[in-house]
């Protein structure tokens, strides 16, 4: 098994158009399968990851190749099975544990933030916890306040876990491979809306070119998804696509938007953000997580503290500190929709 090892400093070369195209879900499955073939220590555990294949298809078909000893359906006991992942990782295995919806973190967060994330530090580096916690995020399909959250700001706030948030199939595969191979705990958060599921509205970019061989996308490197010179949008996950859609639309009006896809939020590629804003001096952060005390503030503050005079405009399009409502009209009023992004850009350019 050869692995295209991408250096930390170099962004991976995107595949030629015309190559094989996969959905994000299939890209994740492929990354898992290839790692499981390469490394006996990799296993997947979680609710409905077996015959069902993962509620959001992260594990479809894996049980057929790897069997129930390596693709394990668990009881609905998140504390127990995430802890199981921790213990197995400590003993040298490479568990991939699925938390079905990130919204369920409240029943098991102690294992995650006080154990998975802290053991390496508390042990003075003597104990490693090389596990991946993969979980579904996001709303937009009326699943209500307990099944539609993004919450990555909460994970990123607490030290000791890396947090990656792919927006497309190429990154999804490369980041999963990197996450499993990482010696650190990695929280891998996929938005349901970028998985390319047959039964949910999706952005066309949730299906895209993916190399067949294993490769890594480096954890901690942002990607300029679109170059532009007038204004910077820093964003991640599904919102990357909304931002690109708005950028395409407004390009016709002569507004040239740069879109930065963070891909990882821990570590956060602060240099990439600065680099873009140095060019545009205007910053909009688009985020499907709650607005206050989270990602959007961190990005703006990073620029403000590093180069206080730089910003001529800063604003955010995020969920305005309200539980995600059920009714479509309300939910779409609080999500960072293309319409809200567009309005924010127009305001910034006014």
């Amino acid at each position: 098994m050869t692995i295209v090892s991408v250096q930390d400093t170099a962004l991976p070369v995107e595949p030629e158009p015309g190559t094989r195209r996969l959905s994000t879900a299939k890209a994740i499955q492929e990354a898992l399968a290839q790692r499981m073939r390469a490394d006996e220590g990799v296993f997947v555990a979680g609710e409905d990851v077996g015959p069902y294949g993962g509620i959001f298809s992260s594990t479809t078909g894996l049980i057929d190749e790897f069997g129930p000893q390596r693709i394990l359906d668990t009881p609905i006991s998140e504390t127990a099975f995430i802890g199981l992942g921790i213990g197995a990782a400590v003993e040298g295995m490479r568990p991939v544990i699925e938390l079905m919806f990130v919204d369920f973190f409240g029943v098991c967060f102690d294992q995650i933030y006080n154990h998975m994330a802290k053991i390496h530090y508390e042990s003075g580096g003597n104990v490693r916890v090389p596990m991946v916690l993969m979980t579904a995020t996001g709303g937009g399909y009326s699943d209500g306040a307990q099944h539609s959250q993004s919450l990555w700001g909460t994970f990123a706030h607490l030290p000791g876990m890396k947090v990656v948030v792919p927006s497309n199939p190429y990154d999804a595969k490369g980041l999963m491979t990197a996450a499993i191979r990482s010696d650190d705990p990695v929280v891998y958060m996929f938005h349901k809306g970028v998985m390319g599921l047959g039964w949910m509205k999706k952005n066309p970019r949730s299906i895209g070119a993916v190399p067949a061989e294993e490769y890594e996308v480096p954890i901690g490197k942002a990607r300029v998804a679109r170059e532009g010179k007038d204004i910077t949008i820093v964003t991640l996950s599904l919102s990357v696509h909304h931002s690109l859609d708005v950028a395409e639309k407004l390009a016709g009006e002569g507004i040239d938007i740069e879109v930065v896809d963070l891909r990882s939020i821990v570590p956060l590629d602060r240099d990439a953000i600065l680099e873009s804003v140095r060019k545009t001096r205007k910053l909009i952060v688009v985020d499907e997580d709650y607005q206050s005390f989270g990602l959007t503030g961190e990005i703006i503050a990073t620029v403000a503290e590093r180069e206080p005079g730089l910003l001529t405009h800063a604003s955010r399009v995020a969920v305005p500190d309200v539980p995600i409502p059920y009714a479509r009209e309300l939910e779409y009023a609080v999500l960072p929709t293309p319409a809200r992004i567009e309005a924010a850009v127009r305001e910034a350019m006014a």
Partner: protein
Amino acid sequence: MTTQTALAADQRRELFEMMVLIRTFEEAMLREYHADKSPGFDIGAGLVPGEMHLSAGQEPVAVGVAAHLTTDDAVTATHRPHHIAIAHGVDMRAMTAEIFGRETGLGRGRGGHMHLFDPKTHFSCSGIIAEGLPPALGQAFAFQRAATDRVAVAVTGEGSANQGAFHESLNLAALWKLPVVFVVEDNDWGISVPRAASTSVPSNADRAAAYGIPGVRVEDNAVESVWQAAGEAIGRARAGEGPSLIEVHTLRLWGHFEGDAQGYRSDLAEVAGHDPIPTYRDALIADGVIAEGDAEAIRAAASDRVEDAVAYAKASPVPSADDALKYVFAEGARA
């Protein structure tokens, strides 16, 4: 059967009527949910978007338990809440309007089908499994402190009984002798995971011993058996004798949620044959409690009520996007 002698004919008829009402409601939800999601099922599309967990087959649990409650008693239900809500007397129009995401709904469209809150009947539910149990303790605590004989019923699925909240709640309830009845709906499945793959003992009733409280398992998914077991447990709770646990071996007639192809399900072929409603109808006819034609009349009456609620919901206004931030807090505003 002793259960049959304990119940008067009109009570038995009422149990049947309620089961039919619930089923009729769920069939209407099934219809409405799928009405505008094709071609190419899109979970977020249509008048009733989002996840939809229907309860067909589990009516005996809801009806057998709720028959012993008044709307002064509290009930906390799960992600699969409709049968319990209806049996407990939640207003069907307001509930349906909530499922349709309307301003006239129980939660003004903010909650949705997994988040039905009705202060009038002290009913609530939650989409996080087993996490409806702890709040039921608090309702029971308030009832106990107020020196009433009101009780709280907390419902959970068999899969969810392996969540930590189950253990903590039973222990605390037992310790403080709270007037709570824990009801486990064992429908054999937690989404795609069969009970044997989630639960280390054959019956959750056995787990009552871990808290020193009575535990019973009702094996036959018959409303009168549930009625009997629930009557004893609720009676105990009202009498200040503390909590009990009841597990009912019930039946998930349809998928976990709508859109679930159930490819994993080994028992699919037999499922329809175990539907508790025809069974009960036949028994009541055989016992002369209802006549052949009554069943249809009952069904028709149920249909009228359900369609009225659906029509009400559809005619109700959708919430205004301008109000999306309303109701985060009772007082003050966000800064």
